[in-house]
């Protein structure tokens, strides 16, 4: 393999500068200089595109968000920025819609993330068995991941429809009264969480499955020699063995949950979409950000909401760190 590749290399192009009469030493020196530059510089050139694009379209806007949040800016006149210091933050703090959106983001986040990751864990455990058609089951579990938020939300909006939706029909057939999945707060939040759970459980299950397959077999052997049941093995070998992947999925899901936007927007259908229902019963921070900026034309306030979302994320991770610290200290 190695020889064939190098042969192909030398065949394509004579790599060493061919000796020439007269200017040989300068040519060689230039070659050496070129080589040094290549060794030193090429790695930076290779990683540069990533950092340039990230700096231009993510990092700079991120910093600029905080600057905008200190101004009044209208959507129609984006170049007119009026300095208002922390007014936007003060107003946001006193705005009941903000606290409502914050609360909805947290509750929908919990309702969608906790069952999702628990189910993914169970699913990964099942997929980890030796079995027939394992590829089919894995691909099937990824089908929701291939469906866009928009398509998934549209389908689930119909399945949860009040008058002719499948869920209410099924509930009715066992004698349960129809639920208004859109207008009532908790049913709406459950329905929206269902979309999130449906789309991401299989994906997370595959991440867990990959981690489970990397657990060395001798740990299971040792556990079963100790007389551990399968359930005990799952709790004491499998779960600790994939802990870092579990943390990773929690981080990803938390980031996703703070940004929840498409599901509640489309579930709310058109005119009510951005407000998250007639009474803002499922308006998330993502929706509030969009409503302030692109419906109320207040870009400064929109940026303030964005910054509040960021602070929420930071807060969540600080709390998680502290809890972890305390736990490791007590145990």
């Amino acid at each position, binding site marked *: 393999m190695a020889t064939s590749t190098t042969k192909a290399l030398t065949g394509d192009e004579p790599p060493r500068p061919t000796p020439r009469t007269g200017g040989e030493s300068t040519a060689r020196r230039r070659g050496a200089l070129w080589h040094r530059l290549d060794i030193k510089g*090429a790695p930076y050139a290779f990683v540069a595109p990533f950092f340039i694009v990230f700096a231009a379209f993510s990092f700079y*806007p991120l910093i600029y968000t905080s600057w905008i949040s200190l101004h009044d800016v209208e959507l129609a006149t984006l170049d007119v920025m009026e300095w208002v210091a922390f007014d936007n933050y003060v107003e946001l703090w006193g705005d009941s819609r903000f606290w409502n959106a914050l609360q909805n983001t947290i509750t929908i986040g919990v309702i969608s993330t906790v069952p999702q990751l628990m189910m993914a864990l169970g699913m990964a455990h099942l997929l980890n068995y030796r079995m027939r058609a394992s590829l089919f089951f894995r691909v099937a579990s*990824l089908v929701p991941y291939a469906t866009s938020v928009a*398509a998934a939300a549209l389908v689930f909006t119909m399945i949860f429809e009040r008058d002719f939706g499948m869920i209410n029909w099924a509930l009715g057939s066992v004698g349960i009264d129809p639920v208004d999945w859109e207008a009532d707060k908790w049913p709406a939040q459950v329905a929206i969480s269902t979309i999130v759970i449906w789309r991401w459980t299989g*994906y997370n299950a*595959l991440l867990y499955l990959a981690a*489970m397959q990397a657990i060395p*077999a001798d740990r299971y052997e040792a556990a079963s020699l100790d007389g551990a049941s399968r359930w005990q093995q799952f709790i004491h070998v499998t779960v600790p063995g994939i802990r870092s992947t579990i943390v990773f999925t929690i981080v990803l899901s938390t980031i996703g949950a703070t940004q929840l936007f498409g599901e509640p927007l489309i579930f709310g259908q058109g005119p009510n979409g951005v407000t998250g229902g007639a009474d803002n019963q499922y308006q998330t921070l*993502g929706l509030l950000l969009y409503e302030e900026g692109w419906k109320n034309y207040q870009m400064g306030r929109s940026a303030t909401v964005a910054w509040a979302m960021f602070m929420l994320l930071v807060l969540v991770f600080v709390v998680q760190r502290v809890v972890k610290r305390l736990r490791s200290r007590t145990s």
Partner: protein
Amino acid sequence: MTTQSLPARTDAPARTPAVKAGGRGGRRLLRQRAGRQHHAGPLAYVLLAIMAILSIFPLYWTMVAASTDNTRVSQTPPPFLPGPNLFSNLARAWDEAAMGKAMINSLIVAGVIALSTVLFATLAGFAFAKLRFKGRNALLMLVIGTMMVPPQLAVVPLFMMMADLGWSQQLPAVIFPTLVSAVGVFFMRQYLTEALPDELVEAGRVDGAHSLRIFWSIVLPIARPAMAVLFMITFVHAWNDFFWPFVVLDMTNPTVPVALTQLSAGYVRDQSLIMAGALLGTLPLLAMFVVFGRQIVSGIMAGAVKG
């Protein structure tokens, strides 16, 4: 229990590996297979079948609803078997609901983003995996750190920037911010660290090849399976990306998810038309999953192990 599980473990490595694109060595493969100790019992099959049905049913029902008509969809019990109108509804969605234009736009957007992500991720992944340079670890940590920054935070300035550039409602506004991906860089780095032997790079150097030439002639052929997987995963993400395209594009020039929101926003809701649009927008990705499901699954799992 021990006697049950032991034979399973010993014959496990003999089976041909389903994961090819992961590029693992034989020893690693053996270790991985070893974790899977028990044969699935009937209960496991039943539970897995239920999960498969739950995963697939909403899409099946999308197809059912898209193949009937609006009055049938709005009756109880809901239809469970396909009707006769699938192709006429798909044709209507293509023409009336701007889905045709949206599909072409999404194909361009997702195609360009996936190509550039793969190229830049392979370049950076190669540098992080096999080249020595000052600040390598710090830069790699920075790449990983950028994964934690949610894109929504940057949306207001980004919108202003696109207005300045004259890109509002234009496809470049969607393409440029996502030309690279930290996940992609990390994924290629993990892959190349294991799949690309140091000796090959050294041999190339001894032959006097410069770095770009080594990349072209040695790294690319070895990275190809991982690049294919990264291309597909990025394509899926770009095709389905919602928030930013929804903000910056409008209905005259939408991507598929943006066009779908408009389908549901009309005052007279034609349910089977909506479902036809949703189905149409999902079909290309479903086709990809049917053909390349194995590679996509192995790619997601390969990216996860150390994720």
